[in-house]
């Protein structure tokens, strides 16, 4: 294990904005931090980077406790949400600056910058300022800068959030190739679950500064440990049936299907999604979402069922999974 967070917490004033966070990321592994806005994702990255210091717990990189080590000395490669490129410097100078302040020789600087420019296909932009680049190009420069740092850990704070949906999909394989090929732990912050599933080996779901669940994308999807994770992971959102004797039953829209022996429902609305269609049903158990093949012609009144194995059960008080 190469990056370990041991029970770390961060306090602002008297309020804990992050508490009891326990994570381990292996070398070459990509962990996605996923959660709604304000749940503490950026805070976690800043603690790992050393931009803020943890108020409790410790952080280990390659077995060394770096909790008290200054950001300058932690050897972290970080891509900021805003990219944080120096606006007054050209792309080449942006990449050079770090090498220069770390006292690397001029010839070596030239060599390394040239090779990373080639790797990221940025050669033709070397003399441009950040303001003269597109969002995707800026992101590549920010990434190039992180690569040049030759870091022990990669931290990426929503590196795609400033890009349009198409570009994000195009860039994912490239990003994976570049960063995940390395032998460093990667922590990848996003609030887009598709991106998290596409990029990460494991996903940690945060909520209000606490770890809700950590596991592979499959584990999170198949065995969500809380109601929060169940409704956060998987689109369209899981159906939560009204609590009965303290138990909430949840069923994914893709597990609901048409069947003659099922319960009768009335169709309220149909959203056509291409290969599938999302039906909103009015059932005796409340409103239900059902995802089915778009070839099927849906009548006004239908009967639906699902297999009880596909049901998830949660304690309605605590929100925890019951097995």
């Amino acid at each position, binding site marked *: 294990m190469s990056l370990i967070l041991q029970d770390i917490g961060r306090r602002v004033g008297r309020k804990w904005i992050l508490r009891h966070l326990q994570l381990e990321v292996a070398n070459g592994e990509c962990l996605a931090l996923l959660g709604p806005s304000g749940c503490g994702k950026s805070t976690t990255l800043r603690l790992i980077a050393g931009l803020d210091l943890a108020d409790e717990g410790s952080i280990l990189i390659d077995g060394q406790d770096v909790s008290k080590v200054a*950001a300058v000395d932690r050897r972290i490669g*970080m891509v*900021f949400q805003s990219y*944080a490129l120096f*606006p007054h410097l050209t792309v080449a100078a942006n990449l050079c600056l770090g090498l220069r*302040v770390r006292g690397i020789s001029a010839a070596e600087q030239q060599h390394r910058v040239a090779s990373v420019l080639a790797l990221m296909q940025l050669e033709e932009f070397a003399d441009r300022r950040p303001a003269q680049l597109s969002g995707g190009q800026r992101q590549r420069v920010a990434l190039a*800068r992180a690569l040049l740092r030759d870091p022990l850990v990669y931290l990426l704070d929503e590196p795609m959030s400033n890009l349009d949906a198409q570009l994000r999909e195009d860039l994912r394989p490239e990003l994976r190739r570049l960063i995940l090929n390395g032998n460093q732990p990667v922590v990848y912050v996003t609030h887009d679950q598709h991106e998290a599933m596409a990029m990460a080996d494991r996903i940690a779901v945060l909520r209000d500064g606490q770890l809700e669940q950590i596991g592979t994308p499959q584990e999170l999807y198949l065995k969500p440990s809380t109601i929060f994770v169940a409704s956060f992971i998987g689109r369209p959102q899981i159906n939560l049936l009204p609590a009965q004797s303290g138990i909430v039953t949840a069923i994914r829209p893709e597990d609901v299907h048409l069947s003659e022996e099922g319960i009768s429902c009335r169709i309220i609305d149909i959203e056509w999604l291409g290969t599938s269609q999302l039906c909103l049903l009015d059932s005796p158990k409340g409103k239900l979402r059902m995802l089915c093949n778009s070839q099927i012609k849906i009548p006004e009144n239908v009967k639906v069922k699902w297999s009880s194995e596909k049901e998830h059960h949660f304690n309605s008080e605590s929100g925890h999974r019951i097995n």
Partner: protein
Amino acid sequence: MIQLLLLPAILLVGLVFGVPLIRYAWLSLHADSVVTGLVAIPNNGANWLRLINDQRFWQDAIQTSRFAVVSVGLELLIALAIALLLDQRWRGRGVVRAATLLPWALPTTVMALGWRWIFNTPYGPIEQLAKLFGLHTLNILSNPDITWLATVVGDVWKTTPFIALILLAGLQTIPEDLYEAFRLEGGKPRAALFRITLPLLQPYVLLGLLFRLAQAFGVFDLIQVMTGGGPASSTESLALYSYINAMRFLDFGYSATIMIGSFILLLLACILVWAIIQQSRILKGALK
């Protein structure tokens, strides 16, 4: 027509700056004094010939430039330090920030009177201090070699807050994450000052520089109240000289000539500063 929207601004600027300028330029080509019965009579550039040969004009021009360059230079340095300090987060910053602005809010004549008293011989606190340390009387306001420095002190005290405010505004436009990225790159705080802060502050420094240079070059009230241009005209500014010609000698034609003459000098100085800055930028680019 988007240009139409600029019309009121252009008209206003034209009215406030253009009209007096043209009027003065016109007046500088005429004799208009008690001798002519305060009627403007064309005199074929005699005013300008007189100006070129006027020792006192050139001396005042040198004195005014010296005053402007030294005060603005000092102001920039001190203001930069203050702005950097006020940009940090610390307890009581708000109070200090407000206090910093006080000199700027004070009317110049009032604060000039204050300085005149501070430098007064023999009763002012400076002289009292000098006496305490066993020094001779300094005669700050009556020694032609050093009196101008006293006026510099007054000007620096009064207008440093203004530049500090401009620079502070500039500092606050620099995103925090640039510094954080730089820290992660292994950069130390002092390196951040030279590699990030100062380059990004450059437009604001330039703005303050040109603005203040023009203002200091036209200094009038501070000098008038503190020294009246003395001793022996050693602190006399061009504006004061022009004022004396109009108000004491009632020679409006020549007064206007001095005004337009100093305006031309100021324009040349600004172009020079601008050119130097452009040049240095090109130099920097070439070194990259």
